[in-house]
Every structure is written in structure tokens, then in C-alpha cells.
């Protein structure tokens, strides 16, 4: 249902991987003296830092540069962590009016989603459901997560959703569904609809 940052993660993991791999390779080539033969770099026996490191770090400007670099790096890391939070990305209000010259008609997609969930929850074998509408009023995009009992007829549930629920939603919006994604989950719980009646064991003649 929720969308995650798969493409973003793989892209940045690849970039970081290439950079770190290249840095490690260059370090080993330099340490072995091979890099000096090809690129005329410093000899392997020489110090990594030539010059006075303490004097280099003394000016206040260096601290300011380190601060800026630290802020940039920290913000990038934080943004990447925040991007891992799965997002619903549900649609904004559906605009059901034509051109608005005679008024606006707006519909909150969550209202439609709740109606879909309520109908699906009455189907035999369904334990619970969740619906999420994306897209627009003219091109609605529906994602459903339906949890069924482990003895339910899964194909029957799917058939009922496809022949009843989806056409009714499409009819309500007066637009065909752009896409419908259905995820079936299985639970050992039983359907929660209905009324529980307790028996007292009393027989009345």
C-alpha cells in the first residue's frame, strides 16, 4: 500500500559504493607504490600529510568550512533517513465539477475509500480491508489491501470485488479506474462483522 524509496536507495547506495570502492582502490595502489609509477604521485614511504597539520587547522576559516561541510553532510544523511518512512501519497480532494462556473464539487477520497472498505468487509471470508485512492477524479487509482481468513475462498473474494465493488466505485466517480492494485493477506482471525449472542443455557417451554 505505502510507497517506499527503493529507487532512491539503490541509486545512492550505488554512488556511495563506487566512490568508496574507488577511494579504497586508490589508497591501496598508493600504499603499494603502483600509483606513483602511473601518475607520478608521492612515493609510498612519504608522509600522507606534508607540512604542518596543526598550522593548517589553526585559522578560524577552516573551522567555518568544516561547519558548513558538516551541516551539508548531516542534512543529507537526515533526509535519506526520513525518506525511508513509507508514505501513503494519497490523493487530494477530487474535483467532481466540470469547469467550476456554476460552483465547485469536491470529494475527499478518504470518504470513498471508507465506503469501499465497508463494502469489502461484508464479503464472506474477509477479516479486514484498507483502501487508498490516488490519482484524480477522472483517472482514479485504487490500491486495496484485503485480509482474508485462512479458510476463505480467495478467488471468490477477488471475483466479488471485481464484479461489485470496483464497478460501483467507477460508477460513483463516473470515470473508469485507471488502475486497481489488490494485495491479499491471510489471517487466522475470523470475520469481525455480525453480532455476538451469548447463550445462558436456559430452556423456556
Amino acid at each position, binding site marked *: *500500500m505505502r510507497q517506499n524509496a*527503493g529507487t532512491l*536507495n*539503490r*541509486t*545512492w547506495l*550505488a554512488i*556511495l*559504493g*563506487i*566512490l568508496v570502492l574507488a577511494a*579504497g*582502490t586508490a589508497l*591501496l595502489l*598508493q*600504499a*603499494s607504490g603502483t600509483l606513483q609509477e602511473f601518475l607520478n604521485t*608521492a612515493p609510498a*614511504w*612519504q*608522509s*600522507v*600529510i606534508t607540512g604542518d597539520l*596543526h598550522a593548517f587547522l589553526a585559522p*578560524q576559516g577552516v573551522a*567555518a568550512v*568544516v*561547519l558548513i561541510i*558538516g*551541516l551539508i*553532510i*548531516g*542534512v543529507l*544523511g537526515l533526509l*535519506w533517513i526520513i525518506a*525511508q518512512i513509507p508514505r501513503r*501519497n*494519497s*490523493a*487530494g480532494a477530487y474535483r467532481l465539477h466540470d469547469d467550476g462556473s456554476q460552483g465547485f464539487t469536491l470529494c475527499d477520497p478518504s470518504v470513498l475509500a471508507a465506503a469501499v472498505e465497508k463494502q469489502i468487509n461484508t464479503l464472506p471470508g474477509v477479516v479486514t480491508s484498507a483502501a487508498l485512492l490516488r*490519482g*484524480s477524479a477522472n483517472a482514479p487509482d485504487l490500491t486495496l489491501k484485503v485480509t482474508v481468513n485462512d479458510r476463505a475462498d*480467495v*478467488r471468490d473474494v*477477488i*471475483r466479488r470485488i*471485481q*464484479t461489485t465493488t470496483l*464497478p460501483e466505485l467507477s460508477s460513483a466517480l463516473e470515470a473508469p*479506474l*485507471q*488502475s*486497481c*492494485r*489488490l*494485495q*491479499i*493477506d*491471510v*489471517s487466522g482471525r475470523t470475520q469481525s462483522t455480525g453480532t455476538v449472542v451469548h447463550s445462558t443455557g436456559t430452556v423456556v417451554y
Partner: protein
Amino acid sequence: MSRPGQRSTRLRHRPSRAIPALIAGTIILAAGVGLVWLSVTRLVSGSWPAVLQGPVDWLAGLAWNDPAVWQIGTAAIVAGVVLLLCAIIPGGFTALTIDSSGTGTRDAAPPAQEQETVMTRRAVAHLAKARCVQIDGVGSASATATTRRVHVNVTTSLHEPGDLRQRITDAVRARLEEAGLSPVPQVTATVRSRD
């Protein structure tokens, strides 16, 4: 990063590599916080923190061919390879496809232009386990599922299981086929007698 109301992504997708991303992001954030703390301390107090003294002295005396440089280089290569593998290796799909094309009425138009019906691997395993425990002779069962295989571990009180394994695999396969999974994963079973 994502606009509200955009189209949905496929439910059956490859792993998002969230854990390597979280680890890398945390390391990057920690490095940034560390640099900020060092520089703020320098700007406020007029001198770098004392914790920096040791690393600076060590760095000043480090030569290119020191063992520490070899170790750092090797660690960087290993880390780079791991990161690249995390990015390149696709990983198994998170869900199995259900063929829902035959569930609608013949003359009716498809309910949506693009349809996708899936069942998670965990749901498939639950379905297999639930079918197993209904079979006569099965004491307890557990199941694991990938996109291609479902394996059930069964404990029975029978001293001679006989054809129990075959009955289990046939029953579970029939249940998965009945659920509409396409292709139906290969079902294997391990039966252990409880003595």
C-alpha cells in the same frame, strides 16, 4: 520526494534496501553531527577539542605505506563492494501474483485499465500452514515461502508417517492453486515424528 496523488507503484516489487540505506544514512548523519560539534567547539572556545589531538598527531606521522593505510584501504574496498552489491542485486520479489483474469464475468469490461492482484509471501506461508494443520496426522506445522517455493515443516505423532508427506504437498499445492497463484510455487515438506 513524492507528490501527493501520484500514481501507485506496483505491489509486487523488489526489496527497497531500506536497512542498508538506514545504516548508511545514520553513518553520514553521525559524521555530519561530529563535524558540526568539532567546528562549533573551535569557533566558540578558540581551540579544537582535546579529542582531536590524538588523531591529528597520528595523521601527521602517517606514511602512505603504513599498515594502517593498508587496513583502511582494504576496509574501504570491502565496504564499497558491499554497497554496490546491495544496490545491484535485485533481490526476490516481495509478493506472488494471483491470476484474477478468470474471476470476472465473461461479458463485463475489465474493472480497471491496469490491474494487479498479489499475495504476500507471508500470506502464502500462512495459507500453506493453515491447510497443513487440517490434515489428519499433522500435529503442528510451520511454513516458509518464497516466490518459487513453499516449504512446510510438519511434526506428527505417527511413528510411521507413511504417505503423509505426499498428502501434505498435494493438499497444500491444491490450496495454493485454488487461491489463484500463478505460477503455483513448488511445495516441499519435511515430516518429523514426535517421539
